[in-house]
């Protein structure tokens, strides 16, 4: 309806359904409105195209280089697609264990998975309890605690890294996955509490009260009533934590670098870049391996994640 009205066919801006319902307005020929609408209509699509290319191209380039050979790349660095056949040799090299002459990324993948999954679980348990308390229960210092947590984010990660580095060095936990999980959990919990609290507050209290009337204890109420209702937020939070833990670099570098057995994929890849005999295409294969789990997870759950992250942001 709106399209025929404007006549450009490109633009969708001006006519909201409401306007269309109004008695027909005479169309002014080439008024400022029409000119601006048309120009903006075209600019909009150009802008969208630019954004999509700018955001997608690096990822396409990453995948493309990972299936090219280095000789091929050196011959024609400007090529936009793999010219002569596809080679998965780089992936083999990256994934094979060190004994077999590879880079041992399978071990790194396992480490990253262990760290991320356990971080998710621990963070969830801690922050569900905390968020529920802040959202529902009246106690001294409830609001202050919430802001205190967020204030933590004023401090640079590198500042926190120093004492933790000293501490873990001293007690001998540096280099262990356990220490890293503790660090991740503690740094993410303030944010996840914030996310979950926002969600808990949208659940009507009547349901919990009804359960309380039936004699359910507080923990039972959380487990049987609040948790199932908060599932979308919990899923979003888990994904968020998983991504942060999977992608994290600074603490992994500081804590694990001397212990190759425990390297994460991020750390392994960054260390790979340092050595001269590793070719750029191998590096890209490693990058693809590092990125794929995140991208798959992201596309599967994009909607959920976006809603979870911006819950409450509509208000500004």
């Amino acid at each position, binding site marked *: 309806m709106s399209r025929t009205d404007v006549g450009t066919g490109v633009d*969708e801006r001006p006519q909201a359904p409401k306007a269309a319902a109004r008695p027909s307005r005479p169309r002014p020929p080439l008024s400022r409105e029409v000119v601006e609408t048309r120009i903006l209509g075209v600019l909009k699509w150009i802008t969208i195209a630019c954004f999509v290319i700018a955001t997608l191209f690096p990822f396409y380039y990453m995948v493309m280089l990972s299936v090219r050979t280095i000789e091929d790349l050196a011959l024609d660095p400007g090529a936009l697609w793999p010219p002569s056949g596809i080679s998965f040799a780089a992936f083999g090299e990256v994934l094979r264990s060190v004994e077999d002459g590879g880079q041992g990324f399978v071990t790194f993948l396992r480490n990253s998975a262990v760290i991320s999954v356990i971080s998710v679980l621990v963070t969830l348990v801690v922050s569900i309890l905390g968020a529920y308390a802040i959202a529902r229960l009246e106690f001294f210092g409830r609001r202050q605690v919430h802001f205190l947590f967020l204030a933590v984010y004023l401090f640079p990660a590198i500042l926190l890294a120093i004492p933790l580095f000293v501490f873990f060095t001293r007690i001998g936990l540096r280099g262990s996955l356990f220490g890293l999980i503790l660090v991740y959990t503690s740094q993410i919990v303030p944010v996840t509490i914030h996310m979950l609290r926002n969600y808990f507050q949208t659940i009507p209290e009547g349901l919990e009260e009804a359960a309380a009337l039936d004699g359910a204890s507080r923990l039972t109420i959380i487990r049987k009533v609040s948790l199932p209702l908060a599932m979308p937020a919990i899923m979003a939070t888990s994904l968020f934590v998983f991504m942060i833990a999977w992608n994290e670099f600074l603490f992994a570098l500081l804590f694990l670098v001397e212990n190759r057995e425990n390297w994460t994929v991020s750390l392994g890849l960054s260390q790979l870049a340092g050595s001269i005999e590793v070719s750029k295409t191998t590096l890209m294969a490693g990058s693809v391996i590092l990125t794929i789990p995140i991208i798959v997870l992201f596309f599967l759950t994009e909607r959920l994640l976006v809603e979870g*992250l911006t819950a409450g942001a509509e208000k500004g």
Partner: protein
Amino acid sequence: MREGPVVGAEERPGDPTEGGAAAKGGKPRRRGPTLAQQEARAGLALLSPTLIVVLAMVVLPILWTIIIAFQSLRLRNLRTRLFDFSFTLDNFGTVLTSPGFLEALKVTLIYSIVGTTLSIGLGLVAALVVRKPFKGRTLVRASMLLPYVAPVVAVTFVWQIMLDPELGIVNAIGTDLLGWESPIPFLTQERGTITIFGFDLGVPTALIVVILYQAWRYFPFSFLFILARLQALPGELDEAARVDGATPLQRFWRITLPQLQGVIALLTVLRFIWTFNEFDDIYLLTQGGAGTEVISVRVFRYLTGRGDIGAAAALSLVLASLLAVLLYLYFKFFVGRVDEADAI
């Protein structure tokens, strides 16, 4: 929108109903804690794991950093000096007078101010163009979020290779198609010259690239929040302005943008804090070389390169205090103009 009804619900805790229920249901218990006390106890109990984790791994370390900053602590004397509390100001002296400190400070400020502005600006533009539904919008939106969700190590490496003087596609296109005389080492060149209308302009190449990278990687964050706000805006104002004959651009400047002020102010604070403290991206792209050494990379150098833990702690405190001062100034002079209630 979501918080509206929520705040109301929060102000009315279930006390009266619950109290009545307990009195009706159970035996009349005179002794023991009141319901309010019970609730307070339950609250603290549920919160205690969080408190313990955050206190032990975040708050105490921050306090400890302050102590370390005044100790002459190094990696090699960690065993003997850790509990040596003869405080000294030497670390601050070392850090503040060391060559390159002022330069790093300048780079940090430029990087955070320009980077924050660019990433929010791009986020705003992106949110505006995908505001109305169209076919494939979900995919476009998802692809715009990719730079932000992808692992930092992977994306910095792609950028490195794209910008590589020998193997990179940018230089290949530049020399083959755009007629550059020689490839540009984007990430290792501190100063380049570009000629505009016959004038040679010196430009900090690597710093510009790092800032562009930062805008590329973090605009999705602003995009997400501005888009959420845009879609919650009531349509009536815009509609009324249209009826009164306001053109699309006028409506944007006079109607839409003012309503986004709150979310943009919030994003400015958040993005500035994070950019100011940024470490990963710059370290991975340039290792802080070629005029891109920000303060946090310097802290890392003190910590691992020289093993000077005291100096690292002192410099990180300098970084945090600077940020606090800047935020204070921001809230004092800028936020006053935005409606306070609307800001956060």
